[in-house]
């Protein structure tokens, strides 16, 4: 057992990342698949409550902290990382990129297995760095997007850091409540620290208004890099949100509901495949944020179940979109169509993933989304706008589900089923197929055998002792709900298909703040440069004057000389003298009284 807890996984994985980047392509990727797979095994085996306490920058730190939450994150992170490395190999990614990707995976492990805020923020910031490197590695348009990504995450990380410092001032320790020596109450201190933490983490999970980096960054890098990116940053954000708000918060719950609707709506407007999927990350993370925000055991179990499932189907979706791009070289849905004949495996994998994300009965999304919606109904308030039986947050989440159906019907329709594809393209290559089919199988397995999922959740949703309302996946009303959402989605797509096809690019919040930031910073830079130049000129002139005064003082004195025979400008006449006197006395009297 001591073998398992001797070193935190991040150390091993970082070493592996370096090794992979140096090895030949085939061997490197083999190691890259094997080690995350072993990490899954490790995450399953490692005993709960294991701690690795140390000193970090002179503070108590816990580099390893195993509880059901971090275990679940470890299992799914390792799983998807192994598949994604396989997919990378199949999609002709080079070992440098896979090395960056694995370092990103490693820092994510560091973050989710951290037992204190200091370690968490340390790896949180490193994740921002490694993911930025992963984006930059592709070059081209990805570089500028990477800059914007890094800037926003730097800002978010700084806010979280401020929150953590504020928290430290209050409780005088960075440790989590669950580790030995930790504070009495879990979560971040309420008040300013909580507000800062919510916004700082909000950048990572894509709060509305802070989300623009998602659709901006994720469509730009290599197709395999997108598979990594879509998993780690946002899900670690959900995990962090839970650590900061273990009892939830109403505002966060409603923000989650808003994100579910907003993301799905904006996804509908997109034609770039990966951009559409990126908006769906925001939408799906909205469900998880809502689950964390509701704060009950049921909803939080749902949130983490959704993290688990989402990583599977969203990874699969990015893989299928990647294969389409890989084979056709086209990113836009408008230029695709009829591909199901050309690439049936990809079309099949996509269908499974789409049904999963939309929450159709029989697929894993149906299970986890159902838990959250159940939580929003049974363990959360009615909210300001209940519609009949449906509570405010509940119908927001359901509406997001309809939007999800609509946009995936759109994706599938335009990419695979609409019209004929001109020419012939091969289907996914063998290893891509292996990667996709295995994940697709998991989506179905966890949908059908929901007890397998329930077993790894932090709270047992089937036990009345644990949750307020026992959850059962396959009930008649729940099945009806799933089918109704699908039908509504179909109808909705049929109605909006025409207007949507005529819609151009819909501006998001970043079309406001990118120019604002750009011109603001340009103004700042120009101002600073000009100020520097002005100071420089002044210094040079002063130096010149001093030099002249020192080297040829007589010239300077001659220039200043008050020639007796001339009327000198500095010599005051009678009138001016009286004026000076009057002003002087006035000023003196004003100053005195």
């Amino acid at each position, binding site marked *: 057992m001591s073998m398992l807890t001797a070193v935190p996984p991040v150390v091993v994985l970082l070493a592996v990342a370096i090794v992979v980047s140096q090895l030949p392509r085939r061997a490197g990727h083999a190691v890259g698949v094997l080690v995350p797979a072993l990490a899954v095994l490790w995450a399953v085996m490692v005993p709960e409550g294991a701690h690795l306490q140390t000193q970090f920058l002179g503070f108590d730190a816990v580099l390893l902290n195993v509880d059901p939450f971090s275990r679940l994150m470890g299992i799914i992170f390792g799983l998807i990382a192994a598949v994604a490395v396989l997919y990378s190999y199949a999609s002709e990614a080079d070992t440098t990129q896979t090395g960056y990707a694995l370092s990103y995976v490693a820092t994510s492990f560091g973050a989710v297995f951290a037992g204190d805020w200091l370690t968490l923020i340390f790896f949180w910031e490193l994740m921002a760095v490694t993911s930025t490197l992963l984006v930059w590695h592709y070059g081209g348009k990805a570089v500028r997007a990477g800059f914007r990504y890094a800037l926003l995450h730097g800002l978010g990380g700084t806010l979280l850091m401020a929150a953590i410092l504020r928290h430290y001032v209050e409780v005088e320790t960075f440790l989590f409540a669950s580790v030995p020596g930790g504070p009495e109450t879990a979560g971040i201190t309420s008040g300013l620290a909580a507000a800062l933490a919510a916004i700082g983490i909000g950048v990572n999970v894509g709060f509305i208004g802070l989300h623009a980096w998602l659709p901006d960054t994720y469509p730009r890098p290599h197709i395999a890099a997108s598979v990594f990116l879509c998993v780690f940053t946002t899900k670690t954000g959900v995990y962090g949100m839970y650590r900061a708000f273990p009892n939830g918060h109403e505002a966060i719950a409603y923000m989650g509901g808003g994100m579910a609707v907003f993301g799905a709506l904006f996804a509908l407007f997109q034609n770039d495949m990966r951009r559409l999927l990126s908006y769906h990350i925001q939408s799906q993370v909205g469900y998880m944020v809502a689950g964390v925000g509701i704060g009950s055991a049921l909803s939080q179990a749902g949130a983490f179940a959704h993290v688990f499932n989402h990583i599977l189907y969203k990874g699969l979706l990015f893989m299928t979109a990647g294969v389409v791009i890989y084979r056709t070289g086209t990113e836009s849905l408008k230029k695709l169509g009829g591909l199901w004949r050309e690439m049936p495996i990809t079309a099949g994998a996509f269908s499974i993933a789409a049904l999963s994300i939309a929450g159709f009965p029989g697929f894993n999304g149906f299970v986890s989304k159902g838990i959250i919606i159940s939580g929003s109904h049974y363990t959360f308030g009615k909210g300001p706008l209940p519609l009949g039986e449906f509570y405010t947050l509940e119908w927001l989440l359901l509406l997001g589900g309809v939007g999800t159906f609509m946009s995936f019907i759109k994706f599938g329709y335009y990419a695979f089923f609409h019209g004929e594809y001109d020419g012939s393209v091969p289907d996914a290559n063998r290893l891509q197929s292996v990667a996709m089919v295995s994940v697709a199988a998991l989506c179905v397995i966890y949908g059908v055998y929901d007890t397998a999922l329930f077993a790894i959740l932090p709270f047992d949703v089937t036990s009345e002792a644990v949750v307020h309302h026992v959850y059962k996946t396959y009930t008649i009303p729940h099945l009806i709900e799933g089918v109704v959402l699908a039908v509504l989605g179909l109808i909705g797509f049929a109605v909006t298909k025409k207007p949507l096809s005529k819609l151009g690019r819909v501006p998001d919040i970043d079309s406001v703040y990118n120019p604002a930031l750009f011109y603001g910073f340009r103004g700042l830079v120009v101002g600073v440069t000009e100020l520097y130049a002005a100071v420089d000129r002044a210094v040079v002139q002063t130096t010149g004057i001093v030099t002249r005064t020192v080297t040829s003082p007589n010239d300077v004195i001659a220039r200043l000389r008050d020639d*007796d025979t001339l009327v000198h400008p500095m010599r*005051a006449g009678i009138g001016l003298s009286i004026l*000076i*006197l009057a002003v*002087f*006395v006035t000023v*003196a*009297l004003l100053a*005195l*009284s």
Partner: protein
Amino acid sequence: MIEHLPVLLVVLPIVGGAIPLAASLVSDRAGWPVATLTLVGQTGLAGLLAWTVSSSGTVSYAVGGFAAPYGIELVVDGLSAAVALLVAVISLGVLAYARKAGPHSGPFYGLYLLLVAGLTGMTVTGDVFNLYVFLEITGLAAYGLVASGRDASAAVAALKYLIIGTVGASLYLLGVGYLLAATGTLNMADLATKLGEMAAYDSTLVLTAFGLMVGGLTVKVALFPLHTWQPDAYANAPDTVSAFISALVSTVSAYALARLLFSVFTVDFLTAVPVARWALVGLACVSIVAGSALAVSQDSVQRMLAYSSVSQFGLVVAGFAIATPLAVVGATVHLLGHAVMKGGLFAATGVIERKTGATTVNGYAGMGSRVPVSAFAFAVLSLAMVGVPPAVGFVGKWYIVLGAVNAENWPVVAVLLASTLLTLAYFARLVERLYFAEATIHSKPDEAPVTDGSGQAVSFGMIAVVVIAAALAVVLTAAVPTLEHVLRETLIPVLNQ
């Protein structure tokens, strides 16, 4: 007789001044002997008074037998005795200069003695309104003396002096009115007790009175930026007058300012109203720096010396405003020392001009060999003014700096130390010109143009005055302990009460 000394000091020059005016109807030559006789007597009386004060303390005298606070009181303590003696000695010394340098008219000596009467009156009076009267007498006599030069520029300078000086004196009178309104008295000692009791130090009435009186006197002292009359007046007046008024008029005005601070408003006022002290100190510091800067930029030596006074009086006022015993002793020493040095310097410029025609800094080039004695005296006086030990200029500055250090007034310490460098900046230039530069003026002395036309020859008396001034600038250092003792006996208790 002894008890009448203070009033005799004022009466004697007034009476003496009337004689040359009347005698000028008969002969123009009567003026000088009468004035000399009067001032020899005056010097004797002043010396006697100073000796009395130093041996038996402050002397006071009720004019006409009307007792203070209703009658006019004359009060002579160590500070006023020293200034009165200075006035007498310097006016007698300048007469030796005037014997040859002129102007040679009866009315000139009448005004001359009237100025002495005014200055002495300002020095010995213990009454704020009486001070105004003597201030005006001093002013009117000084305007007349400046105008006695034959140039049009002298008349213009005198007019400028008259207008600005009169406005300044009027402001002072206004302030006296406010004080009278606040306390109902004009006697200085009485005011000192009633201010603070009858009217709070920080009441608008008292503050306004302070502002107006200090503002008015600042014009007379010629601190920057109210100095504008002074360079014109000093540079355009006849040399005799330049030497006389540069040595005494601003000096006695600065004395009056100190008298107001210590004997009317008192140190308690400065403590209660820190802004007043800071305003004075700030004004003094600005004056030190600005005066030096203006002095450096001058071409005419006499104007340069005039701006130098602006700077040096900044130093004196700073010392008085800091108002610790050390600083006050230092300011007094510098006040008296500056009078001797500045008078000597102006007298020296007159001699050099008469002998060589040089009036500008460049004109002074190489004059060290042409007029060795005067040039040497000029150099000694310059270095004394800069503050080279053991000259009296050093002692005064030293005490002021010590006082500022004691008061922990570091910005002022910095300005004071910098002022030495600034003073060096313009005097070193002159000394360098005198001794280390090629001559630019080669004409013979008798062909040299003389601006005031009151005779071109240089008498032994003129050179003697310059030399004695230079000697005094060094020797007076020896008198500092005596002065310090007298001040500690008579003035310092007022500071600490």
